[in-house]
């Protein structure tokens, strides 16, 4: 590897980005100015790093240069028109001193990055805007890259991000260092946003999985970053573990024709052992805190699947219990539906069906509800009812892979229940 190659410099800029943009945001208190300052610093880096090699501390270098370029611009502007009082302080900073201060003062580091991430999950923003904004501002993906991952046009994504930025500018960003309670709230918001980014990539269908995979990888990178900033937070350990354990299966989730392969049918030798090991180590760490939470519980469920060398070795009893715990802390019909699958393995389809019947009104438009219900009915030999459920599932399928999967069930039903039926 040559450290001066453009691709490596790009990677260095990407990895320094959250810290640098976060610090510049603290100086300038304006997102667009901070981003522009960072861009200018990057351009300067692309010019000078290939000759001199990258600096020891790329983030500090980018913060310094970004700040100075912006201040120079202010000075240039000042020659043309007098500045208001407030802006004088900025331009009088001594550069060398600033450099030293930036190097020694790690105390801002954590809150800078957290603030930068937190801006993106402003409650006024819909989830799609939150994650688009985070990918643009924190991760530094181009609008084109984000549009591609979200399967929308570049113009539409550009608009989405512009709207989000406008809303944030109106809402204002808190710049004082947050107190403990507020920091915890921000952390929870940021964790939820990272989870959304991951889900956006994970819920891809076979034909888009490769295009959307970068979203999963980016979510894992952000989760690790957050955990480095808050090493003692068991829920952030749980979140990171959950993402790693889910992503570890990515090579086994789709067949060659793009159809979805269910967990129990996956080739487990394709699962990433390294990612599973990291996920398990993180859960072990989180459990020591005896402070349970929804991410940890979900990660523990994913871990039980990961630990099973074959589907038969899956500890469904434990998974049932964990879903029960998840129902307590984060009750939702979808959690109960997932629990029902575990119940069907432990206590049979009859008990599982009884568990999901009350969910029907709430999940009337949920594809998975009818898929799962159909499967239970089929296990009980109630084929006519199963067929109705499967038909409903196909009508509600979001992707061709989902529909194809249900058709497979239906074909099996038709084969089993109507031996006399003639193919038309």
């Amino acid at each position, binding site marked *: *590897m040559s450290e001066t190659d453009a*691709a*490596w410099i790009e*990677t*260095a800029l*990407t*990895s*320094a980005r959250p*810290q640098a943009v976060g610090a510049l945001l603290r100086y300038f208190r304006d997102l667009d100015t901070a981003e522009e300052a960072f861009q200018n610093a990057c351009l300067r880096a692309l010019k000078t790093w290939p000759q001199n090699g990258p600096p020891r501390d*790329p983030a500090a270098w980018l913060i310094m240069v970004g700040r100075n370029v912006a201040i120079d611009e202010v000075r240039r502007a000042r020659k043309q028109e007098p500045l208001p009082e407030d802006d004088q302080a900025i331009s009088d900073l001594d550069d060398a001193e600033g450099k030293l201060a930036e190097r020694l003062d790690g105390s801002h580091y954590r809150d800078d990055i957290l603030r930068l991430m937190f801006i993106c999950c402003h409650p006024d923003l819909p989830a799609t805007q939150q994650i688009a904004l985070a990918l643009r501002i924190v991760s530094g993906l181009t609008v084109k890259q984000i549009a591609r991952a979200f399967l929308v046009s570049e113009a539409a994504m550009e608009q989405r991000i512009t709207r989000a930025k406008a809303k944030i500018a109106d809402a204002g960003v808190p710049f004082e260092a947050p107190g403990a309670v507020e920091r915890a709230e921000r952390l929870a918001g940021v964790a939820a946003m990272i989870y959304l980014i991951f889900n956006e990539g994970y819920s891809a269908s076979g034909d888009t999985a490769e295009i959307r995979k970068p979203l999963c990888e980016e979510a894992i*990178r952000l989760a*690790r*970053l957050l*955990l*480095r900033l808050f*090493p*003692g937070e068991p829920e952030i*350990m749980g979140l*990171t573990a959950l993402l790693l354990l889910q992503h570890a299966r990515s090579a086994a989730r789709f067949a060659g024709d793009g159809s979805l392969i269910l967990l129990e049918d996956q080739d487990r030798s394709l699962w990433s052992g*390294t990612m599973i*090991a*990291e996920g*398990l*180590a*993180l859960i*072990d*760490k989180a459990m*020591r805190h005896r402070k349970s939470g929804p991410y940890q519980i979900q990660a523990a469920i994913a871990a039980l699947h990961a630990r099973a060398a074959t589907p038969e070795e899956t500890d469904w009893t434990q998974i049932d219990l964990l879903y029960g715990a998840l129902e307590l802390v984060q009750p939702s019909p979808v959690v109960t539906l997932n629990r029902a699958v575990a119940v069907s393995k432990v206590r049979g389809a009859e008990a599982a069906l009884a568990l999901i019947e009350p969910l029907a009104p709430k999940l009337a438009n949920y594809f998975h509800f009818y898929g799962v219900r159909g499967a239970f009915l089929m296990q009980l030999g109630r084929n006519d009812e199963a067929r109705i459920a499967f038909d409903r599932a196909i009508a509600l399928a979001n992707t061709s892979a989902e529909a194809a999967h249900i058709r497979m069930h239906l074909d099996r039903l038709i084969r089993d229940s109507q031996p006399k039926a003639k193919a038309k």
Partner: protein
Amino acid sequence: MLYAILCYHDEDFVGSWSKEQDETVMKKLAVVQDKLTKQGRLGPVARLLPTTAAATLRKEDPPLVLDGPYAETKEQLLGFYIVDCQNLDDALDVARDLGAANPGGAYEVRPVGVFRPGGTLT
């Protein structure tokens, strides 16, 4: 004389490598490692999982377990062990036993991602 060569780098940067970049580096390293192996000079090689997966055991009485990697600057790296463990608790138990034999300082307990036992060095 055996030498331990310990790798330090910016984890943010390494964690941002694309899969291709990572593989490029590993391939280039493998060339150097293979040469050493042929000469019968290469012992175990390990690539550690990220520091976020680490815990640190301060060798006090009683021992204190902290989340995250070892982060003091007043103590120096003096050695290391590679031990096969069931899970983190098991690894911490091993660290406690070692710590009882040699109190003071700390052990960072970090899972290993890639391990090559290497040739037979004596």
